[in-house]
């Protein structure tokens, strides 16, 4: 080597140095405070500002919360209790209204002797969701199912459920918990039946209607099998056609005939008796369940290379996304009859669900389209090269991945939709937020109470929506870890 080595300090460490603790000022609470709260003048100012905000909130609202009254029969009684307990002029929250009108907030005007039905439906919802949502983790599923079983059964007993139904509920929940241990996928059968069961339990009426709907599925399946021999392409069309014909043409008559022969049914409950969180959750869950598949179809349509299909999808999506939901709800509730043959009349809740679904589906389609676009082209090619046809490739390869990528967007669409269920108040349904609170306030005993109902409803909405968003974060992390 030509160059001069200024110092060829060959150096070899004989003994390795042990790790030492950091210097004192580098650890502990003091350091934390210094770094996180007072690291500079701006930071100190922000800290003071933050403290100021907290102080403002606490000093203005704390006594109001602290002086809560939970049992009273009217606002005046409540005010009197506050005055007696905390002195004249004291402010206090009167959450007694929640306690007194609890049933109304939860069940709306649902007949009180039938409260067990919505409760059961809600409990079974978790059973139905278990294989879909909590399929990733056995312990979580166990926890959810166990809790569901216990809480549902206790509530059902408390609500005075008929024995037969109690047995049914116990059988389903406990059975599901057991099956979930061994063959969680079998629970999907229950998930598939759940919508029908739920609708029947909520609205009541003859069981024959439900059975006839099922028969339609059966016929469709039969048609599928028959047609599949001729041409797999036609089988889907045939199945849909047969089922449709049955449902539209024959199911109604068959159901009423059967009902006349062997009357089997439970007390019917009318849509206008729905209200409160029962209504929100019914609309929300139905909207969520329906908007996802519709959103997928729209997204696929929008990405298809068929010009007509694409432009129809674009027009639909842009139209729905371009107008406010309340105008759509208005159309659903008031104008729909203009577009239908004279004399048709169908359930207002169903109409609202359809509109909410369409609305959410348009947003969902855009979210899923993003997910589809993010998939590398190689995935499509590999599927093609293996000989999978378009639908199989979508179902087995593309959508599972695209949906996974889209989870955050999908869940925030769900959250948005659930929040939007409050807008049904503008079409005369009894949502918990406005209509129900107005109804509560309409009675002389609770006239003039604003904050407590709003806070109560807000807290419930917050818990549900926040829960959903946390769940999506959990799911995202979990999926990222598993399939990396």
């Amino acid at each position, binding site marked *: 080597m030509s160059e001069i080595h200024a110092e060829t300090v060959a150096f070899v460490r004989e003994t390795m140095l042990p790790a030492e603790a950091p210097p004192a000022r580098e650890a502990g609470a003091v350091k934390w405070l210094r770094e996180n709260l007072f690291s500079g003048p701006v930071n100190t100012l922000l800290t003071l500002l933050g403290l100021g905000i907290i102080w403002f909130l606490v000093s203005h609202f704390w006594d109001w919360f602290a002086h809560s009254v939970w049992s009273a029969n009217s606002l005046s009684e409540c005010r009197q209790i506050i005055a007696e307990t905390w002195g004249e002029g004291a402010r206090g929250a009167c959450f007694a209204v929640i306690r007194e009108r609890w049933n109304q907030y939860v069940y709306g005007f649902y007949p*009180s002797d039938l409260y067990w039905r919505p409760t059961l439906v809600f409990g079974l919802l978790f059973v139905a969701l278990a294989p879909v949502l909590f399929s990733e983790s056995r312990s979580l599923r166990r926890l959810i199912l166990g809790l569901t079983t216990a809480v549902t059964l206790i509530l059902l007993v408390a609500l005075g459920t008929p024995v037969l139904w109690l047995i049914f509920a116990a059988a389903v929940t406990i059975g599901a918990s057991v099956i979930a241990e061994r063959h969680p996928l079998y629970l999907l059968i229950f998930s598939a039946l759940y919508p029908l069961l739920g609708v029947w339990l909520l609205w009541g009426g003859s069981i024959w209607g439900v059975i006839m709907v099922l028969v339609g599925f059966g016929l469709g399946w039969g048609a599928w099998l028959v047609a599949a021999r001729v041409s797999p392409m036609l089988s889907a069309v045939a199945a849909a056609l047969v089922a449709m014909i049955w449902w539209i043409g024959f199911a109604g008559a068959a159901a009423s005939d059967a009902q006349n022969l062997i009357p089997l049914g439970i007390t019917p409950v009318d849509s206008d008796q729905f209200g409160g969180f029962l209504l929100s959750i019914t609309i929300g869950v139905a909207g969520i369940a329906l908007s996802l598949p519709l959103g997928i179809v729209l997204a696929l349509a929008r990405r298809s290379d068929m010009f007509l299909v694409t432009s129809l999808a674009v027009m639909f999506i842009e139209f729905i996304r371009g107008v406010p939901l309340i105008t759509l709800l208005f159309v659903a509730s008031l*104008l729909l009859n203009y577009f239908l043959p004279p004399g048709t009349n169908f359930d207002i809740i169903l109409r609202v669900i359809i509109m909410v679904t369409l609305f959410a589906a348009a947003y969902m389609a855009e979210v899923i389209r993003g997910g589809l676009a993010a998939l590398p082209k190689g995935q499509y090619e590999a599927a093609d090269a293996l000989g999978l046809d378009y639908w199989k490739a979508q179902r087995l390869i593309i959508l599972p991945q695209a949906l996974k990528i889209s989870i955050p967007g999908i869940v925030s669409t769900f959250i948005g939709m659930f929040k939007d269920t409050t807008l049904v108040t503008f079409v005369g349904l009894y949502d918990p937020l406005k209509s129900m609170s107005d109804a509560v306030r309409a009675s002389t005993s609770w006239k003039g109470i604003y904050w407590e109902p709003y806070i109560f409803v807000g807290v419930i909405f917050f818990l549900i929506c926040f829960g959903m968003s946390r769940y999506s974060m959990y799911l995202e992390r979990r999926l990222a870890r598993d399939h990396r």
Partner: protein
Amino acid sequence: DTLADVKARGELNCGVNTGLVGFAAPDANGNWTGFDVDVCKAVAAAVLGDSSKVKYVPTTGQTRFTALSSGEVDVLARNSTWTFSRDTDLKLDFVGVNYYDGQGFMVPKELGVTSAKELDGATICIQTGTTTELNLADYFKANNLSYSPVNIDSNAEGEQQYMAGACDAYTTDASGLAATRAAFADPENHVILPEIISKEPLGPAVRHGDSNWGDIVRWTLNALIAAEEYGVTSKNIEELVKSSQNPEVQRLLGVTDDLGAMIGLDKEWAKRAILASGNYGEIFAANIGEQTPIGLARGLNAQWTQGGLLYAPPFR
């Protein structure tokens, strides 16, 4: 046609107020009661034979006519004023008047206002989409006064705004004012001003184009009014069926002629309508009469024989 639809459905869709105590309001269990509600019940009883087979569709001032003309409701019994343009241009048919009313103002007593003419510059709560909204504009213009409107959507909102002092005065039909005031914790602190600035004949309405259905509702209402005139009440009706010698009553109750067949109903339709919640007088007394907190006098709404305007055409 509507009659067949209603029969097939087994239920009458009746548009009512979202909540106006005495006229139509749900209680904590969702049962609707009120003066307008009883009209719905009478029609349901007449048509379907069961006064409970009614689906009440709460409508706001803004949505009510759309609900009716789109077929959402079969009959609108929602303290709606019979006006020319509504009857013609809006393609509704008002079938009669169940309450003769006029628009008034309510102000807090402490304001010290004694006449509507003193409301210059005031903020006034007004329900959108009502005749009262139009009357208000006309009245203030005619009297050369100014005001700023606070547009509200329902009576409940109006109450909230008015009670909080967000408007100086609340204006709507005088009956509505009375009902609203009656629901206050301190009715004595609010006064209804003497001026009645408009005529507000309130009555049930049906869609234009189905005159048979209109007839049914019209004559159901007339049956209630006539029943009071002839002293037929829900208490004595069974007796009168057997014993009444008045030929008009006999026709009304289906003892003699079959009037029902002429409108596509059976003989006893009127009897059932009256039995549903009583005759007009009973309904009035039970919901808004002087014995109720609302405490409205019969006034214009007395039978013609008593110096009022109620005058049912003859049943024959």
